[in-house]
């Protein structure tokens, strides 16, 4: 996501809005980039800075090789200012320092860009300090606030920023990224379905607990269809030991859901949509014992279980109830 065109494949709307603004020289004084981890906020902020300083742009694309671009990448550009949390939070002194910086003329030019990472982690003092500063924008200054947690930004700050929402990545793009990072295709499919954050997905791929979860879910399906009477025993011996709290149970249910969905995809011959790629043999095997209608009902049951879980019903109860339904 180093260039506008790369960013465009992931964040077409934001890219269009930002590049249009740059092209028409209508850049806001302050932007708030919001979106979850790994959605390209920081990359976009660097691109805005480059478009601001790079002298060799083709249309809006900065050259990425000139002195300005290189120094923006290395953090040595004197008129680009980064603020990151110092420990857990961004402190008032950091904003005060920034503010002092902006009472001075630039070192090389009179244009300045400042980027505040994790802007939601500003202390109340720091927020108020920044607010004063946003209230009196100077003409050649662009502020870019980055946050994963839009709710924690003061309303008064938000209202002074142009807000850019970074959409969660689409699963196919994410899957590609994962495979590039050495994750097997089967795992990449699954994890990219469960999260749209690259780093989280990679973490999941290497997580032993997660690998075991997959096994247990498949095993439950096997037991449900081949040794119905053992289902409860299995539940208590294995499932409940593994999926202990509400959050873990939700993940187990998600995996279960994926399996039944896959089964239906297999039935309607949409193999490309199947996530549990290694389960094809089993889908084949169950074609005659498990009807499409039952699978649809199973999906409905699982979704109900999920919402019960969300409504704070005891996880053991929820899963017991679900297994009763799936046994029939």
């Amino acid at each position, binding site marked *: 996501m180093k260039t506008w065109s790369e960013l465009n494949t992931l964040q077409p709307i934001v890219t269009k809005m930002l590049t249009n603004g740059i092209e028409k020289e209508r850049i806001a004084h302050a932007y708030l980039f919001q979106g979850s981890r790994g959605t390209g906020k920081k990359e976009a902020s660097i691109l805005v800075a480059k478009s601001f300083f790079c002298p060799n742009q083709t249309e809006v694309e900065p050259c990425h090789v000139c*002195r300005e671009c*290189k*120094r923006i990448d*290395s*953090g*040595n*550009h*004197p008129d680009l*200012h*980064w603020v990151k949390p110092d420990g857990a939070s961004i402190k008032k002194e950091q904003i*005060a*320092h920034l*503010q*002092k910086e*902006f*009472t*001075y*003329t*630039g*070192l*090389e*030019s*009179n244009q300045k860009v400042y980027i505040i990472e994790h802007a939601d982690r500003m202390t109340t003092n720091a927020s108020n300090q920044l607010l004063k500063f946003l209230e009196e924008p*100077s003409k050649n200054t662009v502020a870019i606030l980055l946050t994963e947690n839009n709710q924690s930004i003061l309303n008064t700050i938000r209202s002074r920023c142009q807000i850019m929402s970074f959409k969660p990545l689409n699963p196919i793009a994410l899957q590609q990224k994962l495979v590039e990072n050495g994750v097997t295709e089967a795992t990449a499919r699954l994890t990219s379905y469960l999260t749209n954050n690259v780093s989280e997905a990679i973490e999941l791929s290497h997580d032993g607990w997660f690998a075991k979860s997959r096994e247990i879910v498949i095993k439950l399906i096997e037991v449900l269809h081949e040794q119905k009477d053992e289902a409860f025993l299995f539940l208590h011996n294995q499932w409940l030991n593994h999926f202990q709290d509400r959050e873990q149970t939700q993940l187990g249910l998600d995996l279960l859901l994926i399996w039944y969905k896959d089964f239906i995809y297999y039935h309607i011959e949409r193999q490309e949509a199947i996530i549990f790629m290694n389960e094809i043999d089993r889908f084949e095997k169950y074609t005659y014992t498990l009807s499409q209608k039952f699978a649809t009902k199973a999906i409905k049951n699982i979704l109900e279980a999920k919402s019960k879980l969300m409504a704070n019903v005891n996880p053991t109860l929820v899963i017991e109830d679900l297994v009763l339904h799936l046994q029939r």
Partner: protein
Amino acid sequence: MKFVIQRNQLMESVQDVMKAISSKTTIPILSGMKLEATTDGVKLTGSDSDISIESFIPTEENGIVFVENIEPGSIILQAKYFPEIVRKLPEQTVEIESDEQFNVTIRSGSAEFNLNGQDPQEYPQLPKLHTENSFELPIDLLKDLIRQTVFAVSTSETRPILTGVNMVLRDEKLHFVATDSHRLASRTIPMSDITSEVTFKNIVIPGKSLNELNKILEDSQDKIEISVTENQILFRTKHLYFLSRLLDGNYPETSRLIPEQSKTNVVIDAKELLHSIDRASLLAKESRNNVVKLMTKDGHTIEISSNSPEVGKVLDEVKVDSIEGEELKISFSAKYMMDALKAINTEKVKILFTGAMRPFIIKPGSEEEEILQLILPVRTY
């Protein structure tokens, strides 16, 4: 890049540019020092982004060779280690060389240091001085201008523009003005010989930068060349080049705030007054705001007093050369008055009052120098 240089000259330059280098910089490359070799000599640069200092060592001066075997080029060296290395080298000559990968070798006699340098392209680009857009002043005079005004800049960031000295070129005069809104110091000098090419009119130089410049400049009758670019002010002496960023914004128009008429005029020996205020302030310092009171007594005396409920009272009478106009009782900060008297530094001073709630002016007894100190009184209840 490669050159061989005299260690003493190098050491001196290193010490000069180190004054601009701060370990607390937020731009990583500024923790380094830039070395640049050209056929004319070697230039060292240090910067904390607010101020930058360049020191130039010519290949030769007065027939003495300082730098030889020059292969032009530049490099950034870690400023943390470089000065100590230079200081401890065994021989008088030093060879410094860098390769494409920014590896630096420093040789002197038996010693050889290999350091990792950094790409000079990463370093900020500092503006060049353009002679046609510059003017000159004797260094001594510039130091006076700074000394007589910079102490009055504001130390609070609430109005950042007041943390600087306003430098204005108007009516063939150069004005320096500083105020923290409680007192104001100004000094004006004629600039009749200035060329029309000089384009700046009104800028604000951070007080901190001027203090730094004043420290670096040694008393001298030599000239210093001054030039103002869009975002920096540049001062150049023979081998030293001092740059400062400017304060962004409009300085308040102060000339109309200075009273033109007065109601009570006092002429007094500056030292006598200074000492008297100093004595009164001994106790006044103990209370919150170091306030002293001045009262006209008769045609020849003023009374300086202070009262700190916890500590006690001081009363001091000072003979004056003359008092004209209305009777007066006024309170003000002892510190501001002492600062002003020290800045003026003439035998006699003239103090022009316009009332107990209005600013008063202190000027030299003779009017040959255009220096003016203004102080806002303190209201007591």
